[in-house]
């Protein structure tokens, strides 16, 4: 049978798929971050805990939006705002909704399983989040969000044809994941401690522990380091370990692979490919000493900018919009 010719996919469809994956990845990471905030709050007296809850909002970059609507940072308020507030365009529910709308638009480019995982995930969360979240059911809601994200990932991995559609999907996922990991790390660095003298304290190390947990890296890290925790080691692990699936270097390894496969399919490397290679190279040449010498915060801001440029270049090269 004659194969479909090299007619590219619609730029708009590529855009929808890219963003569907970004939003689902972000929704999952948001739930993970909230989970970490929740665990941290449990280890602190409640009047102190508002600082941990605030850190969640700061990490998400939503302080201004949040402060315009609330005047305090209680656990219940933050959880409801982050999970189900429809006024918050970056609440988990809003993001699942956007992801689902994107999936509907791009539906003819998705397998039945992928579409159903997004649609059913959205339905499940919509029902689950139709009432205010309480501390008693927070755990099960967060688990459900992770599960829906996992089902989506599995359906994508297990059923999608490995063509450009898949490459755009995965590129979106890893752009977003790298961004989220960097942001989570950044907040830990400059926000959580009452003052500089707390660096290295038990509060400090328990916070680092929660950062690890929020990125699902606590087991791997303990195993690799025989249970030893230190901030430098954790930062190194989350930035530079090519084996850890949420590290920056891992994300860029994957992003590189998917952009290479796109280049192969299209017969040419795009400018985005060049930008990505630069950033990957730049990452690979870092070591944790260098990073701490220039400042972790400066390094992360630099990375987030570079990552954003790669995303913009992908959108431009592949004509995501007119």
């Amino acid at each position, binding site marked *: 049978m004659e194969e*479909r010719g090299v007619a*590219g*996919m619609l730029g*708009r*469809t590529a855009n929808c798929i890219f963003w569907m994956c970004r939003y689902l990845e972000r929704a999952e990471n948001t739930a993970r971050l909230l989970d970490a905030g929740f665990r941290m709050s449990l280890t602190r007296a409640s009047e102190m805990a508002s600082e941990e809850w605030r850190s969640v909002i700061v990490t998400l970059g939503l302080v201004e939006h949040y402060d315009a609507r609330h005047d305090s940072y209680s656990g219940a308020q933050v959880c409801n705002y982050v999970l189900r507030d429809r006024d918050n365009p970056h609440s988990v529910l809003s993001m699942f909704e956007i992801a689902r709308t994107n999936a509907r638009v791009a*539906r003819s480019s998705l397998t039945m399983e992928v*579409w159903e995982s997004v*649609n059913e995930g959205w339905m499940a969360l919509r029902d689950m989040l139709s009432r205010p979240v309480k501390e008693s059911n927070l755990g099960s809601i967060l688990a459900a969000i992770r599960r829906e994200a996992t089902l989506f990932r599995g359906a994508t991995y297990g059923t999608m044809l490995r063509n450009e559609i898949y490459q755009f999907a995965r590129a979106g996922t890893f752009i977003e994941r790298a961004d989220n990991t960097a942001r989570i790390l950044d907040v830990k660095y400059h926000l959580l401690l009452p003052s500089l003298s707390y660096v290295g304290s038990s509060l400090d190390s328990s916070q680092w522990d929660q950062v690890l947990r929020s990125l699902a890296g606590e087991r791997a890290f303990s195993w690799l380091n025989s249970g030893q925790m230190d901030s430098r080691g954790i930062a190194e692990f989350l930035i530079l370990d090519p084996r850890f699936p949420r590290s920056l270097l891992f994300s860029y390894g994957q992003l590189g692979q998917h952009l290479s496969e796109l280049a192969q399919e299209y017969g040419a490397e795009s400018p985005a490919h060049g930008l990505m290679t630069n950033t990957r190279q730049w990452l690979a040449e870092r070591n944790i000493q260098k990073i701490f010498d220039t400042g972790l915060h400066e390094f992360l801001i630099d990375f987030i900018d570079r990552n954003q440029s790669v995303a913009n270049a992908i959108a431009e090269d592949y*004509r995501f919009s007119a």
Partner: protein
Amino acid sequence: MSRHSPTFDEMFTADGGIRPAYAGYCEWLQAQDQHWMTHKGAEAEAFFRRTGITFNVYGEQDAEERLIPFDMVPRIITGTEWRRLSRGIEQRVRALNAFIHDLYHRQEIVRSGRVPERLFRDNVAWLPQMVGFTPPGGVYTHIVGIDLVRTGPDEFMVLEDNARTPSGVSYMLENRETMMSMFPELFTSMRVRPVSDYPRRLAKSLAACAPDCAASRPVVAVLTPGVYNSAYFEHAFLADQMGAELVEGSDLRVEDGRVCMRTTRGYQPVDVIYRRVDDEFLDPLSFNPTSLLGVPGIMDVYRAGRITIANAPGAGVADDKAIYSFMPEIVEFYTGEKPLLPNVPTWRCAEKDSLAYVLDNLEELVVKEVHGSGGYGMLIGPTSSRREIAAFRQKLLARPENYIAQPTLALSTVPIFTRKGLAPRHVDLRPFVLVSPQGIDITPGGLTRVAMKKGSLVVNSSQGGGTKDSWVLDD
């Protein structure tokens, strides 16, 4: 014919016997457990929600996406009945195409005095841009839906012709899928003619209408107004099943005299556009200048014969209700044969004597807007209050040429499944017809719409109507 005659039920005879078409089904049904069937009904709804078969209703914010109710009892037509129906449908569709061609060329039918000129001259669907132009392949109505109603064993009538963008075919396909997954044993014991190849036939039929400049394998795209359109699910579904691109106006632009879509590899020409946007939104340069749904300049490309638009712009001139009332003459004029499928008797309120009759009998009649659709803006005399009738009378007197009237038909019924067992409900049938230079292709069956409310005659989904799987037996 009138509401006083007994309603024809397609499953049961007046004395409770089972008609031959339903013999096999009823035998199976009697062997089923009622609770199990109820459970199956809930299963069907969950299936539709999961797969996302919903439609959006304009003006209802809460119910942004609603399901069209699905009833599990199939509507069954025998092979003999279907063969007769399809001959009538084919004849009618052939005449429709010839009629539209004639209207935009020599207008023989007007010269012969059979159809008054004002009918299309005053018609908003008439496009001067189409005069003297013949679309690729000579086809105007690539996809037609002929709405049929039944009032007796052999009495099928055409209620409406849909020559623009008939919708509902995705429900025909999904209803069958659902029935086959819920009751597979039914399909092994009964021989039901398949409908699942409709998207392939549609793709083939559209490709056969491609312009001369088309690639050896024509590029087909479905043009949708977007994700918030009430029929978006169907647009996406058909594109998916045909292996065609689903495009919006913003994806298209005219380049080097071709209509091209913006792909990740640059702009690439499209050969055939199956558009699901109305004529007036097609090209802001030719029609509605504020339209964001269309493609500036597409009409110039079209008139240069370098793209196929299905259905052809201006084809809607043939399907308003004033034209409908002339269909018997139209069929005879172009085919030289008597119409095999009759019209529902229709009074044209533009005509003085008819208007007088309609005004005298409003409480007995159904009065419809000439350009209306979807069950909006109509009066159903027998179920309306005095006040509603009085209000409608004023509208009718103000613009009589805007209305036609028909008797309130005793539409046939087919039982639906309720918690209390089977209960008769009124139905209609929309078969889907594909037209290409290679011929006219009618999918066996179509979409059965059913009024879910007891006694209701309105089957439109926008008014709470549901659907049934429609079977044509292979006998």
